[in-house]
């Protein structure tokens, strides 16, 4: 407990009052403008190269280049215009912790959204009677399903009867456009192709637009939020079946 601890972040009197030179400010400005032109130019160049030489440039290159340049620009603004380079280190710590928080937010959210159903498809192959997955010759669920092949008939007769219909297999559900059936969505909320915007009242399909139909009058969202099976977009009834305040449990 000493007096040296007094205002420990505040001891550095030289921090926080650095007068950045005009040269530095102008140099940074020019660098920023250059980066801006670079990022637009590279986006343009990629399109041009792809069109001229008929090569497929992967999408991530474009995104990577654009975002890297944005990060560089941000570093310049934060470091020099916002004077973090010369400032009290505490402010840098605040900034870094903020970025870490953002990273955990984006990272863990996309960890979930990117990994829905990666285990589910092994779990859901067979409904073993009272099973723990070990009755198939002592093999676990995952291995057993790999041995059998996902969605293939099981070797055991009595198990085969319990197997779900192949068209209902979880690997097909909701991912392939030709499989519109929703099934039970017990563990995912991934949007299901087939139940699309085209089922919303007021939506005009491109085909309808080409035929020159008048736009549908009812643009209000449907009150009916029960999952509906997909149907061809031309025979839907806008605003059908208004349910008010559906009681929930």
């Amino acid at each position, binding site marked *: *407990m*000493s*007096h040296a*601890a*007094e*205002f*420990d*972040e*505040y001891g550095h009197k030289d921090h926080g009052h650095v007068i950045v030179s005009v040269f530095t400010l102008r140099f940074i400005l020019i660098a920023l403008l250059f980066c801006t032109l670079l990022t637009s130019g590279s986006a343009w160049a990629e399109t041009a190269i792809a069109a001229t030489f008929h090569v497929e440039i992967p999408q991530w290159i474009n995104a990577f280049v654009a975002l890297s340049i944005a990060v560089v620009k941000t570093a310049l603004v934060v470091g020099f215009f916002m004077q973090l380079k010369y400032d009290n280190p*505490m402010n840098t710590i605040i900034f870094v*912790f*903020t970025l870490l*928080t953002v990273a*955990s*937010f984006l990272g*863990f*959210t996309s*960890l*979930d*959204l990117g*990994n*829905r*159903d*990666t*285990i*589910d498809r092994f779990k859901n192959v067979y409904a073993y009677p009272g099973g723990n997955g070990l009755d198939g010759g002592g093999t676990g669920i995952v291995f057993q399903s790999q041995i059998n092949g996902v969605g293939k008939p099981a070797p055991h007769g009595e198990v085969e009867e319990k197997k779900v219909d192949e068209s209902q297999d979880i690997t097909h559900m909701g991912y392939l456009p030709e499989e519109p059936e929703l099934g039970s969505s017990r*563990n*995912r*909320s*991934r*949007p*299901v192709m087939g*139940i*699309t*915007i085209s*089922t*919303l009242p007021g939506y005009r399909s491109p085909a309808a637009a080409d035929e020159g139909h008048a736009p549908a009058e009812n643009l209000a*969202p449907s*009150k009916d*939020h029960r999952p509906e099976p997909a149907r061809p977009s031309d025979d839907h009834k806008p605003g059908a079946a208004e349910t*008010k*305040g*559906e*009681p*929930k*449990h």
Partner: protein
Amino acid sequence: MSAGYGHHGSYLEYKGGHNDPFWTVKLPRTIWDWASTIDHKKIGVMYLCAILFMFFLGGMMAIFVRTELFNPNTVTTIAGKTVVAHNWIGQHMGVGENIAKSNEYYNRTMTLHGVIMVFLVIVPSVPASLGNFLLPLMIGAKDVAFPRLNLLSWYVYLVGSIFAVMSLVSGGVDTGWTFYTPYSTMTDDGYLRVVWMVTAAFILGFSSIFTGLNFVVTVHKLRAPGMGWFDMPLFVWGIYGAAIIQVLATPVIGITLLLMIFERTFHIGIFDPRMGGDPVLFQHFFWFYSHPVVYVMILPGLAIMNEMIATGARKPIFGYRAVAFSTLAIAGISFIVWGHHLFTSEGEVAAVVFSAITFLVAIPSAVKIFNWIATLYKGSICLNTWNLYALAFLFLFSIGGLTGLFLGSLAVDMHLHDTYFVVAHFHYVMMGGTIIAFIGGIHFWWPKMFGKMYSEIGGTIGFVLVFIGFNLTFFPQFVMGSQGMPRRYANYVEEYHLYHMLSTMGAYTLLAGFLTHLVTFLHSLAAGKKAPPNPWGSLTLEWTNASSPPIEHNFDHEPVVVHGPYDYDNVIPPQTKPGEFVLPRPAAVAIQH
């Protein structure tokens, strides 16, 4: 010494002339004095009153919910007519036997209980009231870093409460306090109610941010000479940890609720699977705020505990640094565990990862509990009301924390998700933790805040009622939850009747306990004994340097810290009568220093 010290007179004192007529000058001037004050103590007291009022409101909602659940609804036919018996809320809301309507009212009551208790009571409870009052006093500052921002935060809180009450008056919302989509975007044809309520939560977020920002800067910049980071009372550490979370997590609820309002009014579709959106994304967004904010709720409660335990046992806190760092550890980990609220709705990979990280939280929490128990060991424990609350906290929070481990393990949670087990768990943590510590803290600092002693007898009776009532209310909920009683239902099957009955009776006992406290406090304000400056013989700055109640600028002169906050071994508490508080370990230890 910089200027500004030397103003005398309690901060509560009327500053005008002695002969001012009451109604014409004195009352308006006093009101204006309080409404325009930038003194952290007055703002803290105003927050305390508002929060206790809201606590009463939310508590009444809970009583309504429990009353409805006292008996299961029974549908019988009498003389060819269908009659719903025991439908308490329905009958008192004037919808009689319309069971669907009455269920809706139940949903609204339960939602209002949740919203009021979370956003208006527990989140601001300790930081905004006791924290505001004590933080500058404890670190020897004259005020928080930005006093006007502090007052603004109070008014923002007021505006947010008005929005919430507007929603309540116009019929209430029935989405649950979590505002999950699609409930919040689809139900309730009364369009504006949900928007009002969500706007209220959005506005209250700003209040929370302002308070947190203020506290972080205050702790960093305004500590008194001689007070290093590890000379701060642990209360300050706890408030500091909570303030960091408030600053970093609250903006995310801002954007979430904003997006939800967009979704509801413009139907932009990002939470609507029909338009390619994802309702679970809302849960991620929501819990990215709301899980850290659980620690905004509990860290200040833990912070109060440090002061009460150390003073109550007359011993230094065992492992000061471990407790301090465990605060920061909890704050850090709180940002990466939110997925455990989504075990049944998110993908398995994420669920496994979140489950694993969730168990990490147990470590710093256990560090705190063990250190307090070690502090109590061989201490001379007093049994004042506030210390009874501290001891109850150890018991209740341990139950709450350990049942959290059940819920954190993936497989068990699949069974227990959305049952009364969860309800009991978070009430044991939020109420058995934060509110119990808060009530204890109010008793502890009551003499300092208002300059009056409270009646120990009244306090003790209140404590006993609260303790029994609390356990009676929530322990049966563990049992029925593990047997499968789902939460948020207005009705249930006959098998759960006994547990619900016990639980409701417990709720009434709890109410009686809180009313006893209210009476004790009012009695103390009206006829309490004058408080000495340091009635408990504590060693933190607010007791040893400031009078009771503190003067307008806190200290007569700039305080200089000469002993640690918990040096009970070798420092006789200043401002106490000679011989009143003896050194627990006298002479030898003191000489060695």
